[in-house]
């Protein structure tokens, strides 16, 4: 249960959601994330720590760099996926409801 509370809190921040979305495309080093997002490198590191504590991401050392990726064993990834999924689905639903009625 703690994991879900943590994961939910972790994804309540738009920058952290953006990081998770970037990482859904594949592993990235901290510097790469800082380059692709409008946040400083120290800020990215802070966000990554929160995501790691929430079991959403894992990290490994690659030479001098630290590379982050979504935690394949973490339920957090599934949860993040579902969160994005329902946003997409409800947007599509609204478009359908607001279409002129067929007669």
């Amino acid at each position, binding site marked *: *249960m*703690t*994991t*879900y*509370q943590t994961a*939910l*809190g972790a994804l*309540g921040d738009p920058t952290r959601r953006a990081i998770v979305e970037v990482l859904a495309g594949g592993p990235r080093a901290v510097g790469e994330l800082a380059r692709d997002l409008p946040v400083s490198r120290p800020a990215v590191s802070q966000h990554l720590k929160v995501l790691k504590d929430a079991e959403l991401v894992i990290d490994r050392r690659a030479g001098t760099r630290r590379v982050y990726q979504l935690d394949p064993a973490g*339920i957090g990834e*599934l*949860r993040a996926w*579902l*969160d994005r*999924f*329902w*946003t*997409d*689905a*409800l*947007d*599509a*639903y*609204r*478009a*359908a*409801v*607001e279409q002129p*009625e067929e007669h």
Partner: protein
Amino acid sequence: MPSIDTSATIRKTITVDAPRERAFEVFTAGHGKWWPAQYHIGTSEFETAVIEPGEGGRWYERGADGTECNWGRVLVWDPPDRLVLAWQISAAWQFDAELVTEVEVRFVAESPQRTRVELEHRHLDRYREQADAMRSTFDAPQGWSGILEQYAAATRS
């Protein structure tokens, strides 16, 4: 931070320019018209998604080749107020009768022509329980480790 009872729960709210009756109708009878086609678990190309009306109704997708793939079922059917669906899709993207997470959809009138749709996907902790249950199955003496020990013993004899 959300309050404590939001653990294991995803909440989404959207407001639509339509009366509640139409909002409910499009969500259910019109399900296949709006469901994003890229979100499906069947192996065949997605054709439509169906929520059968009434408690106990099936919730499933139909592929282009006619095969049907269950997603869950209707737990509460209370038009135009409320709908509760069982989402029984495992983390491995397969229907799992043992897994029941719930999707509740409430249709709240903000005005006669405007409806707030509140969606709650809850009991996601059951994914964790399921993962733990699977792990303990594999770890049990009669599970994989036991089978491998027997195999190892057999190779020694």
